[in-house]
């Protein structure tokens, strides 16, 4: 498996995402320009220029027409995906840590940081018509968060609830009709770095600093599986075709210098979804992995790392032949 190495960012990668068809791969980093690439050959299609700071989060809608990004320059921007033009700019009181389109892409959600004297806040936008007016409209709903800040967010596939992962490891389900908490659990001890859906949106996987990734039921928030490692897990994704999950992580960036890369802690690690057993590792990054994503066809996956590279891996045939006995 020879990976494509995408080198377009100047600083560490924060988040990568495929569009629904999987032909495009979007990436954001600590530099201020999200990129979009052809996932097939790794050619860069373009950049989204306009942010003034770290781009923490990105998302693309299901039709690949709208693109949203949240950044450390206290703004959340909406873009025309085709032209790469900034369409709307929403000013916030602190940096935007998470953002996501709803299933229908009629709405988008973003959350802000607890910083600069501001409390964390979730805001829902109406993005049915993508134009400049979004910059000035009032959000449909604001949910102030008094406790631990939101560190990751997911929108269900019926546009009715959102699930937030928090800095203290808590997971909360919100009813958007009334803006109230539906359910909350605390299965993680530390910051939840990432949450991703499985293919049909009935389960989601969390990646936490407490060295584990966990699989939950989307409706009841029931804990299904736990995948254990020795390092903080920064990102986790579920294969759309096989019963596999991939975990990316590693030492915290500040501790990297004290660890040998030989010790193999910057690997993508593959676990069986059901048996929780690790069966493969993919080396390559020379820093922690910050984001992983499966191609929607399940035949390749990508990882973005602290080293600033995005690596697109096409699976070998041996991967598809490998079977667990049971």
């Amino acid at each position, binding site marked *: 498996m020879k990976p494509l190495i995408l080198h377009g960012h100047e600083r560490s990668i924060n988040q990568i995402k495929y569009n629904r068809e999987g032909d495009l791969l979007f990436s954001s980093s600590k530099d201020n320009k999200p990129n979009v690439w052809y996932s097939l050959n790794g050619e860069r299609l373009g950049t989204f220029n306009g942010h003034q700071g770290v781009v923490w989060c990105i998302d693309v809608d299901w039709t690949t027409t709208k693109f949203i990004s949240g950044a450390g320059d206290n703004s959340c921007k909406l873009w025309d995906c085709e032209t790469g033009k900034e369409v709307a700019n929403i000013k916030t009181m602190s940096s935007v840590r998470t953002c996501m389109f709803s299933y229908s892409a009629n709405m988008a959600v973003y959350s802000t940081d607890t910083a600069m004297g501001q409390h964390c806040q979730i805001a829902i936008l109406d993005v049915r018509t993508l134009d400049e007016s979004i910059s000035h409209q009032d959000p449909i709903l604001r949910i102030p968060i008094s406790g631990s800040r939101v560190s990751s967010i997911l929108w269900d596939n019926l*546009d009715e609830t959102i699930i937030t992962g928090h800095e203290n490891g808590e997971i909360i389900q919100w009813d958007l009709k009334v803006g109230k908490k539906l359910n909350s659990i605390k299965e993680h001890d530390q910051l939840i770095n990432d949450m991703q859906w499985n293919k049909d949106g*009935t389960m989601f996987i969390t990646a936490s600093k407490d060295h584990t990734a966990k699989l939950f039921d989307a409706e009841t928030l029931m804990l*299904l599986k736990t995948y254990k490692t020795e390092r903080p897990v920064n990102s986790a994704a579920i294969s759309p075709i096989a019963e596999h999950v991939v975990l990316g992580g590693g030492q915290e960036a500040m*501790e990297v210098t004290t*660890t040998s890369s*030989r010790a193999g802690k910057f690997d993508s690690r593959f676990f069986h979804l*059901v*048996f929780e057993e690790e069966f493969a590792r993919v080396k390559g990054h020379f820093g922690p992995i910050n984001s992983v994503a499966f191609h929607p066809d399940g035949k390749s996956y990508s990882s973005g790392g602290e080293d600033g590279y995005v690596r697109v891996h096409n699976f070998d045939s041996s991967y598809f032949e490998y079977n667990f006995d049971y």
Partner: protein
Amino acid sequence: MAKKKNGEKSDESSQNSDSDLYNEDEEPSFSDPEDFVDDISDSELLGDILQQKPKETDGYESVIVVDGVPQVGPNRIEKLKSVINKVFSKFGNLVNEYYPVNTEQNTPLSGTTKGYIFLEYSDPSHALEAVNLTNNFKLDKHHTFQVNLFTDFAKFDDIPEKWEPPQPRPYDPIDNNVSRLDLHYYLLDPDAYDQFAVVTTSGQSVQIWQNTLPEPNIVEERSNWTQTYIKWSPLGTFLATFHKLGIALWAGPSFTQYKKFTHAYVQFIDFSPCEKYLVTYSPQGDPQNPDQKRIIIWDIRSGLEKRSFNPEGPSAWPIFRWSCDDKYFGRVGNDVLSIYETPSFGLLEKKSIKINGIKDFNWSPSDNVVAYWVAEDKDVPASVTLLEIPNRNEIRKKNLFNVADCKIHWQKSGDYLCVKVDRYSRARKERNEMKYSGMYCNFEIFHMREKQVPVDSVEIKEPIQAFAWEPVGTKFAMIHGESPNINVSFYEVKVGLAPNLLKKFEKRACNHLFWSPNGQFIVLAGVGSNGGGSLEFVDTHEFLVMNTTDHFQMSDVEWDPTGRYVFTGVSYWKCKVDTGYWMWSFQGKILKRVNLERFAQILWRPRPPTLLSEKQQKEIKKHLKKYYAQFESKDRMRQSKASKELIEKRAALMEKFQQYREQQIKRWEANKPRRLALRNNVDTDEFFFNVVSISNADAVNFEEEVVEFFIKEEIIPVD
């Protein structure tokens, strides 16, 4: 006083017999006969009398009888009393004394004391101490005290005429009564699996594992079992745990507490080789109890303190070194070698051996021979001497010149002794400390089993990093040279021949040598934070490097007692990340990686030496082929059983998961219309979506787009 006590005692006993009578006569009769027992409690009825009830300390236990006291007339009795008081009052408070006087008239002795006296202490323990320490006390030339407890007289009076041997108790292997514990239970495992102990600093938990195939089995796990670390006794019988108040030993099938040894703030312990004695060392002592000695030697079986010491000055632990049979132990003092005997714990022949300039010594692991070395002094050269104990016979002495330091390494079987001599070309004195330069090194090999103990020398021009004898066999290995040119050399010693170099590995990254306990195999390891964690497994039969690998930040390497497995560990005491232990086969194949948070210590449980004679062992080796088949079929069975278990486990998990998924999918399918509504009736549930309803105008707006790529081939080397 003693008489008065007697009276009291008899009163008490008659009371007792009375009450016994009452009990026997007691019948459910409601009349009020003379033996009526009231239900008013004793304290209400005779509180004033009960106050005078004899207490435990009122017995004769505190009374001692001293015989051999000078007989003096009434005029000198006060003088005698003051002398006696001086001798005996240091053990405790004397509450009573009685000097019997000859009352017979008209004899020369009338009016003089009878030569024995009774003394009473306030506490029985004081009396006991006085007896222990003043019996056979020489007052002067003619008077030696014979001191006994008063109670002993009664005890020895009552010895029955005929002695009956005690009944042997039936043997019960899992009886948990400490005195009857089966201490060697773990050796009876039919598959001879070894045990190991793992300590983690979180909760100070200790786990005992049995290294069963295919997966180790946990035997025992307790949290807060130790407050610092643990130690096995040298034959593996006991597990020692450290506590603020002392040491606890655990043994038997379920690790029952065997003995406790109270020694506050104990930090180090040392077992004698045959596990008879335990030495505990509390370097700081106990601030609440300054009388506590810093070193205590205990008898393990009885739990009694045998002797205690306060060491002078700092010295390397173990301060006391034991002979192989537990008969002697010794330590180095200032120009003396002190050898003590067991079980008396007195100095051998009542005095230390005077050796000017003695620096260090060590016992042979197989004979009662010590090797010691003496530093240079002006005109006297340094020397290494072999001394036989207890007859103090000098077997061999070798003079050495230009010696900076010596290290004594005995081979485990006692066949050879190697003294590593650090030598210098120039020396100068600097503020009372010798500074040496131009260092080089000599190995002096003593052939212990040959007549007159011939000595061979090997000279190495480079600094030595490590030295190790093959535990069984005739080879030794050393690491020499300076980073980055570190070399490992193997030498062999043979009868009548000088050691010859067998093999030299050049440019190796290692700083420690770990021989297999059965010899032949060795692990070259880079231990510690600057060791890099490199591991090299070498078969020294043909000097084949079986595997080169590493365990980053590794701090420990531990061979199992049979030489089949090796543990490498990263201890939390040394390194805070990636702690855990890995198990390797002796060939260097990784068997298991256990990453355990706050893992601190791993120790294999030692085994006593084999009981098979050398001939029997040879016989087994000769017919090894015969056993192979057995073992292999056993292994296969275990393997298939294990994989069967795993597969069953997986099948169960999968079934459960699939049941759960079915419900989920039902729910999901039920929601399909709502999803379609949200996405303009485009079915995106499958990756290649299709348009469900043509009637919706939006949905037909799809057209295929052809994207052309430049395909440029670029070769990027990927590891």
